[in-house]
């Protein structure tokens, strides 16, 4: 490595990256999403996907679900930094793949093609409870809910059957059983 001429130290060794799902409960007020997103961009953290909506209109609480990657140290920092924001009530964090947690993403898929192609497309999606939201002589709009990588695969598979447009949400998460996020 070339000798650094920086006043700052050289970057240390990079640790192993894990993917985590971070759930944040915030006051639903102006700018709160910008605060959370700004914290990620300002500190160089990565946002893979983001889903946000109000879940408690009475108390004005929104739930933000963020999928992010980082070393264990970075993930810890993300949680602590989020916890410092004034409108943040609580922060929960899970490894992606945690068996106790359900993760789901939704995708809308538009397929344009003849009847046979459209039928085949529907068949490909079968495993993920496809719902036909719109149908014409030459097109169909499907809704599926699945994991991110499953949707990735389906998108690949549908290409040959005339997939022309995809719209996807970020992941949302919930614990299995009677437990709730603490």
């Amino acid at each position, binding site marked *: 490595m070339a*000798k*650094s*001429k*920086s*006043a*700052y*130290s*050289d970057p*240390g*060794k990079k640790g192993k990256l894990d993917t985590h799902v971070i759930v944040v409960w915030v006051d639903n007020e*102006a*700018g709160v999403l*910008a*605060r959370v997103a*700004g914290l990620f961009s*300002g500190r160089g953290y990565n946002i893979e996907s983001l889903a946000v909506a109000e879940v408690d209109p009475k108390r004005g609480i929104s739930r933000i679900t963020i999928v992010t990657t980082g070393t264990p*140290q970075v993930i*810890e*920092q993300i949680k*602590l*930094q989020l*916890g*410092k*924001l*004034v409108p943040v009530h609580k922060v929960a964090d899970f490894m992606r793949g945690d068996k106790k947690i359900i993760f789901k993403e939704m995708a809308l898929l538009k397929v344009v093609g003849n009847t046979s192609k459209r039928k085949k497309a529907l068949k490909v999606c079968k495993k993920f409870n496809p719902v036909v939201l719109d149908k014409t002589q030459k097109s169909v709009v499907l809704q599926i809910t699945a994991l991110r990588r499953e949707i990735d695969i389906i998108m690949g598979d549908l290409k040959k059957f005339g997939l022309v447009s995809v719209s996807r949400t970020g992941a949302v998460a919930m614990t299995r059983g009677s437990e709730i996020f603490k």
Partner: protein
Amino acid sequence: MSKLYSGAEIVFKCMEDQKVEFIFGYPGGAVLPIYDELKNHDGIKHILARHEQGAGHAAEGYARSCGKPGVVLVTSGPGATNVVTALTDAYMDSIPLVCISGQVPTHLIGTDAFQECDTTGITRPCTKHNWLVKDVKDLAKTIHKAFEVATTGRPGPVLVDIPKDIQFQKAKYTNFKKQKKLNGKSNNRFSQKDIDKLIDMMSKSNQPIFYTGGGVINSGPKASEKLRELISITGFPITSTLQGLGSYPGDDSQFLGMLGMHGTYEANNAMHDCDLMINIGARFDDRITGKIDEFSPKSKKVHIDIDPSSINKNVKVDLPIVGDVSDVISLLIKTIKKNKPNFLKSNKENTSKWWEQIAKWRSVNSLNFINSDKTIKPQFAIQRLYELTKNKDTFITTEVGQHQMWAAQHYKFDKPNRWMTSGGLGTMGYGLPAAVGVQIAHPDKLVVDIAGEASVLMTMQEMSTAVQYSLPIKIFILNNEYMGMVRQWQELLHEKNYSESYTAALPDFVKLAEAYGCVGIRAKTPDELDQKIQEMIDVKKPVIFDCLVDKEENCFPMIPSGKPHNQMLLGPNDQKKNKITGKGKTLV
């Protein structure tokens, strides 16, 4: 029906309830209703700065020297953008500031109106929190919340943006009661178990060190008293960060001096070789740790901090203790006294070898420099300033650069809140306005800004503020005509290519002082220095002191970047001995 107050009146009602005595600010279109209201509130004095950045730094100097939050009042647009540097500075150094900014009327927000900017958007990353008040009914609640956020937990700046129409609208005001219970973000959540574990680690250690920082100062004067007691009952050595100077007496035998990039040889080597490091209110900043992978490899590390996100951020620690420094130390002392009354005695044997090693490092005398009888050495100037002012309760502010490091090395502080310097952000131009704020808080004390000629020119206009309010601040400029630290790095790292670091056409500082209506003094030789410094101290007016120093002096010792603590560059004496030339310098 209870009385209705205008938004502007509510701003002052809140400030009165928060016991605000001074506002540092600058008027403009979008805050005129608030400025109009000023005349009705005798208890609050407005200090008119000459630039919003100056107002912000003055509020920081005020806050740091007296422990109360500094209040800044600026207008919309350029008023708000000018204060951003001061807000960021306060954010980095954890200084409580409450900034109130005017905004264009609500119906014009988003229309690119005259002097409109997205103030809350711009200041979001440099405040603990900020608010845009869109309803006058929320105003009082928001301002009180702003004071609470700024002063609790790890302190920091906040901003309340108030559109002009809100300042005119009317609402009720209910008197504010200070909540006893602080908000959930204050995080005092350590337990007796943590303390017991710490004492266990302390009694097993043979090479311990305390590494203390600005958190001790921020925790209040009691924390510094407790720290002194803790050091005396443990007999451990202590080193301090730049921000922590003054929390422990600088001339005490257990004090190893400042650590870090320009810290002493003994402090940095002790940090590297220790087996137990107890960090109290410091944050393992990169100027402290040097190369992270080789930072203090043999030690167990304990970190006491009120901000949980400071722990394990840069350096993984073995025992985190989240809490207010003052409370943690108090319980620590109490427990030691109760459970280990003989701690000091047993510990003396444990650490005797360690102290011998420290004595060896000390004998290197790393702050030494080669003095001259022809030119004033900057270190010598600070030493003389210290000797001539140490018997007064002197407050020192600095700008940023070599002079700042020399001040930290050679001026010995023995009380907290006497040392105001921009450490985290490293803001050139901080010291002069900060001195204004310090002098406001302590009108009868001696306030000296140890400055460089380049830094001080960035906020020189604030001399006019000092003159307006008869603030006898002393601007002690170590004038080497270079941006000294830039020049030093260029000498050591960039083959002496002094690219743009020399300031030609500097003003005549003595005449400049006279132009501002204050006193100018110039010292050119070492033998006239004492007499001139005394003259500066005796004048009851603001002074600009132009101290012409050696132009090529470098600041040592120095940990080259990317190096661990035990590979320091020492001063010129050492370089002759070790021949750190050519090749060695490229390692910097």
